[in-house]
């Protein structure tokens, strides 16, 4: 093969917030966190990639596609914009 193909092999590790066999929330929370993260810090901010890898490894691609579509249409059930600090 002429062109060199580069493969990353990273898997999300145990997260004490989600110790159960039910990983649905782990997947969803990582998706939300990732988009909140890049909304605040921008696409290239490296620490956001952790969330990206977590949700790509855990979520079925079909779910991610559906959520992406919802985000584009603005009907995603969670606010992903950078939260403005509340004035007390």
């Amino acid at each position, binding site marked *: 093969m002429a062109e060199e193909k580069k*493969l*990353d092999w990273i898997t999300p590790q145990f997260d004490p917030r989600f*110790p159960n066999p039910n990983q649905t929330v782990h997947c969803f929370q990582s998706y939300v966190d990732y988009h909140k993260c890049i909304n605040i810090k921008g696409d290239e901010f490296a620490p956001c990639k952790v969330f990206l890898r977590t949700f790509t490894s855990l979520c*079925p691609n079909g779910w991610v596609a559906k959520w992406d579509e919802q985000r584009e249409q603005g009907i995603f059930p969670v606010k992903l914009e950078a939260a403005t600090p509340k004035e007390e």
Partner: protein
Amino acid sequence: MEGIIELHDNIMFYILLIVVLVCWMISSAVVNFNEYNNHFSMKYLNHGMVLEIVWTIFPCLILLMIASPSFILLYLNDEVVLPAMTVKAIGYQWYWSYELSDFLNTTTNQTIEFDSYLLNDEMLELGQMRWLDVDTWLYVPTNTHIRFIITSMDVIHDFAVPSLGIKIDANPGRLNMTSVIINRNGVFYGMCSELCGVGHSMMPIKIESVNVEDFLSNIMEY
């Protein structure tokens, strides 16, 4: 899987003990106390405090001794600590689809996903298992901690591979997690184990475990 076999052996010890004890008690009662040969009358034997305590406490202890390794195994199975790779198995009517999204091709930004369909009788080659072989099957590395994420996209399926000791429901809208370490190379077959429609019998699972090096070279070619 080793844990399951060990629990089976463990419990089998108590079962044999109970079977032998009960058989001995029944046979000795039949032999020694029949209508022709009765050693003593039961007329005045109304209470036996010690006997009653013994036959209450003893089964309790036996149940505890069976329950404790069983619970340990149950809760150990729940924990997936330090997995090395994640495989998503997604049930559809009526095939399994696998996604290996750990392997992100950094040039094209694509992950690996494929569907695994049953081979029908005309497509079978000599040596393949009828109704168990699929067109594309799952490759996994040996001696690697693999996390399976099981889910479904339509109805409830069940991802069951008896020789790996896994059987876990695939519910739509829920990701179930289980883990496996395969200790030797080989091909492992399983089937959908939750009645999911007319094609329930036609969605087998085939997993082949290969050395890590072979696995990686395979993945690179994908």
